């Protein structure tokens, strides 16, 4: 499958947005989107981790295929991700303690964000080459970041209105996400020609 980079970008950023259309990274999407300041920080950290671990996984996958131990893929990927998160944490802690204080709580959570694991799995399944993988990792995580920010801003707005106690919380967030998802359906078919 030889997809153009533009297709990969539009596809993973908008049409098959990880969060709104493929349901990846749901826990953080629902859990960390109450505040915009948290959401975009989380989004950017995830972007960073996804890009780095995506590239590393691409390299590791070549090794795995060479050794004919494809069945170890999953465990290797998750180790790469955990290591990336750990390294990111250490790096930020050392170079920007202020940023670390703000992000500290969320960083370990990235390990259990399935959007992060999905990127290496998808790029392997789709046989992307190196450039494609990188573009895919960037656009998919960018899509995640964008969806996070959108939802967070919309949620912050609902904070200012009087919502019945019953709907407050996850149910309301889900309805918001659902409308966002419907709006994103408008992008479907983009680049499909016709």
């Amino acid at each position, binding site marked *: 499958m030889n997809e153009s980079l533009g297709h990969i970008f539009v596809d993973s950023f908008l049409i098959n947005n990880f969060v709104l259309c493929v349901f990846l990274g749901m826990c953080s999407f629902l859990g960390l989107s109450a505040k915009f300041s948290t959401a975009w920080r989380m989004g950017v950290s995830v972007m960073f981790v996804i890009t780095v671990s995506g590239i590393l996984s691409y390299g590791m996958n070549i090794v795995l295929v060479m050794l004919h131990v494809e069945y170890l893929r999953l465990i290797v990927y998750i180790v790469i991700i955990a290591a990336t998160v750990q390294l990111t944490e250490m790096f930020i802690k050392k170079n920007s303690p202020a940023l670390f204080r703000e992000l500290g709580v969320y960083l370990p959570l990235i390990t259990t964000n399935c959007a992060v694991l999905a990127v290496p799995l998808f790029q392997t399944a789709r046989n992307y080459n190196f450039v494609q993988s990188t573009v895919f990792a960037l656009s998919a995580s960018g899509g995640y970041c964008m969806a996070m920010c959108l939802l967070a801003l919309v949620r912050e707005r609902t904070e200012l209105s009087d919502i019945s106690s019953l709907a407050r919380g996850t149910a309301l967030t*889900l*309805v918001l996400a*659902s409308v966002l998802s419907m709006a994103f359906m408008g992008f479907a078919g983009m680049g499909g020609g016709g």
Partner: protein
Amino acid sequence: MSTTTTPPNPFLNGLWRQNPTFVQILGMCPTLAITNSVRNAIAMGLATAFVLVISNGLIAAIRKHVPKQVRIATYIAIIATAVTVTDYLVKAISIPVYKALGPFIPLIVANCLVLERAEAFAAKKPVIPSMMDGAGMGLGFAFGLTCLGTVREVLGAGTFLSIPLFGPNFEPWVLFLLPPGGFISLAIWLLVFATFRERKQRQLQAGLTEIQPAEVRS
């Protein structure tokens, strides 16, 4: 409720009281992604339950030997192993089911429910209760998925387990098979449960105030 004195049965706890889907709102990715048919929902639920039982059991077994600093890494490694095993087992059992669940079996690794149970329960309790907890949580999760799958399949396709329910002229609400429908169905269930819980709490509160108002305050 703070009035409970005996520790809850770990199995029932997960199945109902601390239901992962409706109460803890954990493991949302498969909950939303793999519930457009009841069959897939059940399969995914069972796969997760299986992973939970194995990983909880293994982690409980080695819990005393795990160095504290690397415990998360250890749990993740064990969970990844359990998931890989499940992955191959599902593939061996049925390829269509495997295809339907798509990438979401490997993604069980990143299901926060599994790690959460490892950290919150299996790391502190013996093997048997941990496995019970895993089974309870897993089945509770499967229950949640099935609930969601039912709404989505019945409304979205007019069928239940692929059996047509409304005759040939039924107009399915395609929306429910699409991503927005996943969000909406979960929102509906959460609203239903919230209403239910609110009412129950009010009754409980009313009942308790009548009998022993002092104890509620403490």
